[in-house]
């Protein structure tokens, strides 16, 4: 499904990713963990085509190398990103946000054809968005904005959904709701998911695979079962160096 190999990049001369390797298997969730500033958001930006510089490496989706493709073309290839901080178009209405999510669906009619069908599906998935479809997105609660951001990303029917800290700034009860929904997207719709999440316990509950980042590098990765005792995760978050943190070496 998604294979990121040897990706190095950053912001102009400032490198923030070093030789990063991550995979997401079809219909599985890979969770990327790491402390603040580890490079998790930059990794998602690199995959989405939003990191200003990717100097080397391959980003393959179903065997198609997207490393040189601009961001809008990656969306057409099946990548979808939900950015951190519930990044919706706050001045636009809920429905306009969803329609913009379906921008790549083709056709000129705003509410016609595939876009209309996808809009109906989004409302079925998130009924509260239908109730508030004429409200400016900026007026929604945090949880509703996160639903809108996810609904928007799902509009074009992506192959891979990337979520950047979907629980950030949400109440604990809403966090459970959002992460349960993420798991449902995998279980019921077979969607492949790359999830960056600070709430480790919640994220590990739904993970199939785990990658741990530190200082712009993946320091260890593997199936979730290799991380079950929590030692690697504890060591990373307590600040120890990443040496010898491969699953099974602790």
């Amino acid at each position, binding site marked *: 499904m998604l294979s990121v190999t040897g990706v190095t990049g950053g912001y102009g001369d400032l490198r923030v990713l070093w030789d990063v390797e991550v995979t997401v298997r079809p219909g599985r969730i890979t969770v990327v963990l790491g402390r603040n500033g580890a490079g998790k958001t930059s990794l998602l930006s690199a995959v*989405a*085509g*939003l990191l*200003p510089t990717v100097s080397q490496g391959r980003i393959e989706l179903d065997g198609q190398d997207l490393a040189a493709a*601009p*961001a*809008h073309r990656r*969306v*057409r290839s099946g990548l*979808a*990103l939900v*950015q951190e*901080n519930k*990044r*919706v*178009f*706050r*001045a*636009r209405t809920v429905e*306009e946000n969803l*329609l*913009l*999510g379906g*921008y*790549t669906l083709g056709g*000129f009619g*705003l509410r016609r054809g595939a876009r209309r069908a996808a809009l109906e599906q989004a409302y079925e998935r998130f009924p509260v968005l239908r109730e508030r479809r004429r409200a400016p997105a900026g007026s929604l609660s945090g949880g509703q904005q996160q639903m809108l951001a996810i609904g*928007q*990303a799902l509009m*074009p029917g992506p192959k891979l959904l990337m979520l950047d800290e979907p629980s950030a700034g949400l109440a604990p009860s809403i966090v459970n709701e959002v992460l349960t929904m993420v798991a449902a997207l995998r279980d019921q719709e077979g969607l492949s998911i790359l999830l960056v999440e600070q709430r480790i316990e919640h994220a590990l509950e739904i993970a199939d695979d785990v990658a741990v980042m530190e200082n712009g590098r993946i320091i260890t990765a593997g199936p979730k079962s290799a991380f079950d005792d929590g030692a690697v995760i504890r060591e990373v978050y307590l600040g120890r160096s990443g040496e010898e943190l491969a699953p099974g070496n602790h």
Partner: protein
Amino acid sequence: MTTVWAGLATGAIYSLIAIGYNIVLLASGTFNFAHAQLLMVGTFLAYTGAVTFGLPVLPTVLLAAAGVAVIALVEERVAIRPLLGRTDSHGTLITTVGAATILDGLAAAIWGRQPLTVPPVLPDEPLTLLGGTVRPVDLALIGFTLVVGVGLHLWSRHTLTGLASLASAEDRDAASARGINVRLLGVGAFAVAGAVAGVFGLLVGARTYAVFDLGHSLALFGFVAIAIGGSGSQLGGLIGGFATGLVYAFAARYIGAAYPQIVVFGVFLLILFLRPRGLFGAALERRV
């Protein structure tokens, strides 16, 4: 009422400047300080088509529209694109002001420093309308400006590309993440803004003459129109332009010919103090 018609005709030109600013601002997040100069070039190309080549109205309009669109695209390529992606977002302020200065200089070098008379496309006999007199060409200028302003407003709210333009203005990265080709939108906006400026070259030139420093004087009133109407709102720019023209005309009529600019800038300052977003402006919130 004659003062109202005069104010509306002058205001239509200010509205066109504000509309041009907004087209580019909404789609690319760039404030094109050279837009008034594009309108100035439009008046010269209209003069060239109508007088130098003796072309009929439609070919003259097409010549001016295509010519100014190409110049706008060159400006985007030279003054904007090299700065895209840089963290210093103020660079385009400098480069577009530079483009404006270059266009002023080129116009003076090509067409000279003396005002050139652009022939009116309609009979020059004033009409009596609603108790005032107005030249048909001014009436056409007011009418077509209304059509373009309202049309662009509806387009931005009710078409996918229009919504994409608003989304891009609000958050370029988020728009890219939704599959919107923000660079193409930006280039297209320069071309459309240039074409609109060119289309109106004949009507504007008939009211102002074609003169190399026209853009310089119109740009200031375009800013006032934007300040009154609010940046990012096509309807606001349209109304702000007409309001500016009316204030100017009434100040000239009732206070004195020496004072309209002072009054207009007084209103400008008042708006900045009382309602910095303008009457219809949405704050273009940006994440940094």
